[in-house]
């Protein structure tokens, strides 16, 4: 099936394109980008001039919860949330039940994704068997089954030695090791960023150095082994410094930041709702200096990726004492609006940089197709409406869980439509597009 998108602003930094172009899709792939492309029988889709056509966004850090925690999310509901949030692909974390440490679980997740026919799903395998931090998982088998990276996310790779071996072993298969950086004794039973707000609310603190110490370990090991380490959901300014230092020395280190870590601070623990469990995540919301460092890192190019760490939890699990609530918030359906409202419109980043952070760089780090509108690339497209007025509504989200601190927020910028493999999988009715 051939489709021709006419009239949108194409932003495709991989090919140095930013302007009004037509995009021709043939058989699920990009067949050409240019001006005045002839329809030649293709279905013509008129795209209003205010709409941006970007390579499909890729969220390289989500929890789809299946198998095992289907009351929080399933591959079907998670990918429905993904496409509603403008993501054509997601990489899902292995901390399911059972853990994705073998081909059977990987294949199960991929089967569920194929049934859902929404976003592409790239499973990430466990570094260690059962994520126990003892033996390596069967990494070659995971790779063959379709895993694109490895992580023990939820916690760090337990020991320096195991991390060293993981980096060495994974490098044979071109897989990065994604690290949840946390020195676990320093984190202890902390539930919030160590600082004034945690102190005054009587919450046990987690210092930023719990993260940066582990990042320094892993960057050193990346240098030792030549392996690629990707620092997940970076929150502390000290970690960003560690990454910059590693990059300056030529270490193979990349990093991501979540929207909540560049939008919110630990002041949200106290206001507007004191002890709101939707402000509890790991790593925690940090102080202003950390949030500002993340904004600077996004702006100056030190940060490679924006990922959501979409962490759905059932409301029963969150409607408890702050201490007892699980860490995490949903993120797939708010990320694009937060990026527009807080980064693009204030002029901190360009649209081209937004596409690098949310599409091109995740594709490069995970070595998956996408990230560009090159001829022959999969026809995964995100149509963005930069000036759309969006009011976040948790109740109407596609995700099975509604644990977001952004409910009710008014934001400028959103998703108009999502196309995966040439097929329209999501249209935002508010954007009034006919796709």
């Amino acid at each position, binding site marked *: 099936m051939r489709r021709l998108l006419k009239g949108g602003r194409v932003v495709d930094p991989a090919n140095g394109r930013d302007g009004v172009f037509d995009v021709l899709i043939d058989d699920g792939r990009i067949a050409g980008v240019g001006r005045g492309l002839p329809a030649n029988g293709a279905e013509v889709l008129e795209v209003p001039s205010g709409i941006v056509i970007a390579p499909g966004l890729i969220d390289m850090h989500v929890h789809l919860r299946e198998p095992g925690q289907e009351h929080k999310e399933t591959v079907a509901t998670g990918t429905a949330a993904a496409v509603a949030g403008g993501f054509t692909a997601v990489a899902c974390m292995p901390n399911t039940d059972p853990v994705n440490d073998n081909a059977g679980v990987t294949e199960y997740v991929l089967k569920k994704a194929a049934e859902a026919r929404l976003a592409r799903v790239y499973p990430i395998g466990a570094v260690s068997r059962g994520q126990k931090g003892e033996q390596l998982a069967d990494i070659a088998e995971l790779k063959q089954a379709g895993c694109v990276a490895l992580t023990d996310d939820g916690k760090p790779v337990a020991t320096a030695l195991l991390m060293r071996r993981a980096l060495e072993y994974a490098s044979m298969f071109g897989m990065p090791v994604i690290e949840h950086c946390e020195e676990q004794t320093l984190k202890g039973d902390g539930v919030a960023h160590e600082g004034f707000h945690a102190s005054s609310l009587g919450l046990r603190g987690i210092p930023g150095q719990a993260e940066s110490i582990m990042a320094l370990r892993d960057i050193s090991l990346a240098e030792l082994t030549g392996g690629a380490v990707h620092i997940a959901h970076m929150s502390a300014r000290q970690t960003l410094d560690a990454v910059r230092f590693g990059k300056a020395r030529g270490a193979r280190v990349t990093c991501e930041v979540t929207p909540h870590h560049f939008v919110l601070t630990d002041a949200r623990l106290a206001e507007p709702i004191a002890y709101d469990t939707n402000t509890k995540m790991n790593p925690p919301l940090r102080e202003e200096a950390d949030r500002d460092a993340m904004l600077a890192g996004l702006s100056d190019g030190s940060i490679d990726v924006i990922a959501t760490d979409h962490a759905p939890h059932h409301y029963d699990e969150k409607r408890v*004492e702050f201490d007892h609530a699980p860490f995490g918030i949903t993120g797939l359906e708010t990320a694009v609006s937060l990026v527009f409202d807080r980064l693009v419109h204030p002029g901190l980043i360009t649209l081209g940089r937004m596409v690098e952070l949310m599409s091109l760089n995740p594709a490069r780090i995970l070595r998956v197709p996408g990230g560009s509108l090159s001829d022959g690339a999969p026809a995964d497209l995100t149509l963005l409406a930069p000036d759309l007025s969006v009011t976040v509504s948790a109740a109407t989200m596609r995700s099975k869980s509604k644990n977001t601190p952004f409910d009710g927020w008014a934001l400028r910028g959103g998703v108009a439509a999502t196309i995966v493999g040439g097929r329209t999988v999501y249209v935002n009715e508010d954007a009034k597009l006919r796709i």
Partner: protein
Amino acid sequence: MKKDLLGISDLTRDEIYLVLDTAEAMREIAERPIKKVPTLRGKTVVNLFYEPSTRTRTSFEIAEKRLSADTLNIAVAASSVLKGETLVDTALNIEAMAPDMIVLRHASSGAGHLLARLCKSRIINAGDGMHEHPTQALLDAFTIREHKKRIEGLKVAIIGDLLHSRVLRSNALLLTTLGAEVWVSGPRTLMPPAVERFGVRASTSVDEAVADADVIMLLRIQHERMNGAFFPSVREYFNTFGMTTARMARAKPDAIIMHPGPMNRGVEIASEVADGPYSVILEQVANGVAVRMAVLYLLAGGEGD
């Protein structure tokens, strides 16, 4: 006053004084042969305690009974919390029986905030985790005012496990709101991060903190803190930070010694100090009843006689 008393942070300076002044009137009731007034007749108060507590629970219960409220004690053992129903479900079940007030003691900071959002009943925080213990701070202020006739301008030293103490947080808020000069002291390991932003002066030298102090308040040191490497030994703690008669001599001659209890004699406080003439520790307990009567009365709307 707000619907709930979750912390001193809920009270204005004027409301704090209102509680203290009301407590003066309430204290007189304890001196009567019939220690009971009909003020809260027909009101139901549930004491919902998720942590063991003798002093606070007894104090609330006596206060409620002296005001003629119908009281009910629910003690939930920590072990049954894990397998039993959630705090929210327990509270909603109690709420369904339409009590007027719920007095909550809980090990988690902010537990009262959770209930206050869901319940029509007024919630009184009787201690939540490491957060606040507002009635303790109010009874401390009442006791200080009784002895010193004022709070503004006094030097108050609070010494001990500041990090884990809800008494510290409530007292720091209350005493700084009323214009006292608050010093805190103890080992660095037991100070809350950013404690100076509580509006207090922090020093690891107890001698400096107690110098010319009008009031010295000790906080309990739990032995199990040694396991978290907060301090090496009880002996070293007592020698370095314990309140001894020698350290007491650095304070003003008429300084008073306070402790929210339960005390660890020979750890944070020498017995000679606890039992000395400047100790007002048992007065604190007595005043606790009057202050809690005042809080219950004011939250109930200040109706009746």
